[in-house]
C-alpha cells in the first residue's frame, strides 16, 4: 500500500517570480519610489526633501509617490505583494505626501470625499481600517466615523460632508441590518450616494436587495469604486460593474 498523501502544499507549488518595478525618471525620484515600494516610512521624508532639490513638489507627488503606489497596487493584485507590504507602502506614501503639501504650503486637492464607518453594535473595524488606508493612499479624503456608529450619525455626516461615496463594514449578521436602515434614510432624504457595504457577514444578495447598496468583497475594490463615484457614475451602474 502506498503512503497516503495527507495534504499538499499548493502554496509552495505557486512560488511567484521576483518583483519588477517600473523605473522613475531620475535617480532622486527613483529613491522616493523605492522608499514607497519598500514601505520605508523612516526615510521617506528625507528622500522627498532631497527630490525637491531638482523637482517641484507636484512632480514628486506625481512621478514619485503616486507612480510608486500604482506599482504597489499592481504587485498586490498580481499576488507578489502581501497586504502588510501594501499598507506600509501606503503609510510611507502618505507621509511623503504630507511633506510635499507642507512644501507647497497647501493641501493637494483630493479626488473626493468618502465617508466610512463600521455598523452600529459592531466593533469589528479592521476591514474598515484597511479600506481607509487604501482610499487615502489612492488620493481620497476619508471621513472616518469609526466603529459602532449609530444610523443617525452616518446620515448626519453624509449631510455635512457630501461625500462621493459612503462605505459600511459589518462582521455580524445582527449588525449589518443597519445598512438597510441607512439606505432607506438616504432615499427618504433624497441622497443618491453609492453606499458600498462589505465585511465578513455581508453578502452580495443582501446588499443588492436595497437601493443604493453595492457589495464590496475585497478592500482593494474601494479605490476604483470611489473613482467611479467621483466621476459621477450612478450607483446602479457601479453595482452592475462590480456585483455581477
Amino acid at each position, binding site marked *: *500500500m*502506498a*503512503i*497516503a*498523501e*495527507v*495534504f*499538499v*502544499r*499548493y502554496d509552495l*507549488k*505557486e512560488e511567484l517570480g521576483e518583483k519588477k518595478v517600473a523605473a522613475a525618471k531620475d535617480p532622486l525620484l527613483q529613491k522616493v519610489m523605492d522608499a514607497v515600494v519598500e514601505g520605508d516610512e523612516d526615510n521617506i521624508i528625507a528622500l522627498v526633501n532631497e527630490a525637491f532639490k531638482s523637482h517641484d513638489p507636484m512632480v514628486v507627488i506625481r512621478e514619485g509617490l503616486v507612480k510608486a503606489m500604482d506599482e504597489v497596487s499592481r504587485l498586490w493584485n498580481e499576488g507578489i505583494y502581501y497586504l502588510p507590504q501594501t499598507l506600509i507602502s501606503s503609510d510611507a506614501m502618505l507621509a511623503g505626501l504630507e511633506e510635499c503639501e507642507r512644501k507647497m504650503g497647501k493641501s493637494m486637492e483630493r479626488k473626493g470625499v468618502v465617508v466610512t464607518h463600521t455598523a452600529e453594535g459592531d466593533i469589528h473595524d479592521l476591514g474598515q481600517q484597511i479600506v481607509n488606508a487604501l482610499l487615502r493612499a489612492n488620493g481620497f479624503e476619508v471621513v472616518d466615523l469609526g466603529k459602532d456608529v449609530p444610523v443617525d450619525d452616518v446620515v448626519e455626516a453624509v449631510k455635512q460632508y457630501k461625500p462621493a461615496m459612503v462605505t459600511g463594514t459589518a462582521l455580524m*449578521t445582527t449588525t449589518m441590518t443597519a445598512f438597510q436602515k441607512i439606505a432607506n434614510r438616504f432615499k427618504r432624504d433624497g441622497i443618491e450616494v453609492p453606499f458600498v457595504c462589505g465585511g*465578513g*457577514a455581508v*453578502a452580495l444578495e443582501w446588499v443588492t436587495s436595497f437601493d443604493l447598496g453595492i457589495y464590496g468583497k475585497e478592500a482593494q475594490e474601494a479605490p476604483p469604486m470611489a473613482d467611479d463615484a467621483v466621476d459621477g457614475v450612478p450607483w446602479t451602474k457601479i453595482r452592475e460593474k462590480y456585483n455581477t
Partner: protein
Amino acid sequence: MAKFTKMAYKSADEMIFGTTKKPVKYGRDFELGGGMVYPEIVNHPRPGSEETKKSLMREYEKMTQESMERAVTLGFPGLQVELEHVWQMTKNPDWGGDIAGQTVRQQEDMYQKYGIKSAVRATIADNRKPEEENIRDCRNLELALATFESSAKNKADNLSMESVGGKEISDHSIARGDIRGTLFGIGVLGSRDMEFMWKQIVDIANKHGATPGGDTNCAQANVAMFMAGGMLDKSVSHVFAAVTRAIGAARTLTAYEMGAKGPTKDCAYEDPIIKAIAGIPIATEGKTCACAHADLQGNLIMAVTDLWSNEAVEYHDMFFGTTAGCFVEILGYDVALMNSAIALGKEKDLQEMMVYSDMYRDPHTYVVAPAQAYEIGKEIVANNTDYYSRARAGAICAAKLILGDEKMRLSNYEKEDLQRILRELESFPDKEADFIDQCAAIYKKSVPGFNLGNYGL
C-alpha cells in the same frame, strides 16, 4: 449475469478504509481504493434556481467553485464532486449534460493551476413511478437514459443512480412492519429492476469511456432506516431497519454483477457488505451528512470507506463562505485523519475506534459494522441461487446476529419485533417461484397499481 459466489476478502479483519481489492481510476489523477481515502461533496441548488437552465447552471458553477477552492486553500489532495440531479436535470437531458460538462471544465482549470486531483459523479434521478406506469417502457426511463448519455458525452467521470424498482411494495410494507413485502419489494423486485437498469447504464458508460459507478438502496432500506429515526422515535422499529439493510445489500449487489465498478453511492449503508463481497471501492456518509439526516453510525460507517461524503447540503451562506466550502472542509479533515492513520500504519487502530464508537448504539448500526457485514455477505454469496434466496439468507443472518450478541441491548418492543421478524422469515417458502406467487396474490390486493409485468414476471 455472473453472480458473486465468493467473498473478495478472506476475513472482515482484512477490510480497511482506503484500500480495496479492485481500485478504480478516472477523472483527473483520481484513484479510489488505491491506498487513500478522498472526500466527495454533494451540493444542492437553492429553491428557485431550478427555474431556468441558465440560473441552475450558474448556481452549480458557484457551488463547485467554492468547493474546489476550499479544498485548495486547505491543501486537500483531491475532491470528487457529485451532481445529484434535481429532477429538472434529468427531465431535461441537456441540463444534466451541460452541468456535468461545466463541472468537469472547472475541475480541469483547477487541475492545471494547482494539480488538485478531482472527478465528477453524475447521479441521474430515477423518476419512474412503478405503480402508475410501465417502468420498462416509459418516458421517464427514456429521459433517464438520455441523461446518462448526455452526462457521459460531457465527460462526467462516473455514472450513478438511486433506482426505485419495487418501491411501491416496499413503501407499503416498511410502513407496516411487514417483512414479507419488504423482502419481496427489495430482494426480488428491486434486484430484477437493477438487472434491467444496470445493463443499460453500463452499456452507455462503456460506450463513452465513463465509469459505471453504483446504486443504493436509498429508496427502500433508507426509508426504513430514516423512518426508524433516532433513539426515541416510535416509527418503524430499528431492528426492522437492520434486517431491511441486509436485504438491501443483496439487491444493490446486482449493479456490480452487471458491471458497475464503483465507487458505490454514499447513501448505500449496505456498502460495507458490498465491499466484503465485491471488493470494489465504496462511498459512505455518516457524521458529516448531519445536514441531510441524523445518523446512528456517524463514525462506524467510515470503517471501510474509500470515498467520504456529506450526502447533500443545500447551498447557503455561513459566517464564513457557504455550505459548499464548509462541508468540503469537514469531510476533507475527516479524510485527512484516515489518511494519517494509513501513513502511520495505524489504520486498524483508528478503525477499531470508529467501530467502538457506534456498534452498540443501534441494531441497524450493528449490522453494517465490518464483522457483521462480512458475515451477512457470506450468507448472501453462500445462498446465491436466486435473488430471493440470497436476500432472505442475508436477512436471517442479520436477525440472528443481533439476537445472538447480548451486548446489543434491545428494548422489549424491539426484541419481540425481531423475534417475530425472524420467525416469519424462516416460515417463508424455500423456492423463489413459490414466494413470488404468494406475494403476488397478497400485494395485488393491497397495493393499488402493483404490476408484475414491470419486473418481467
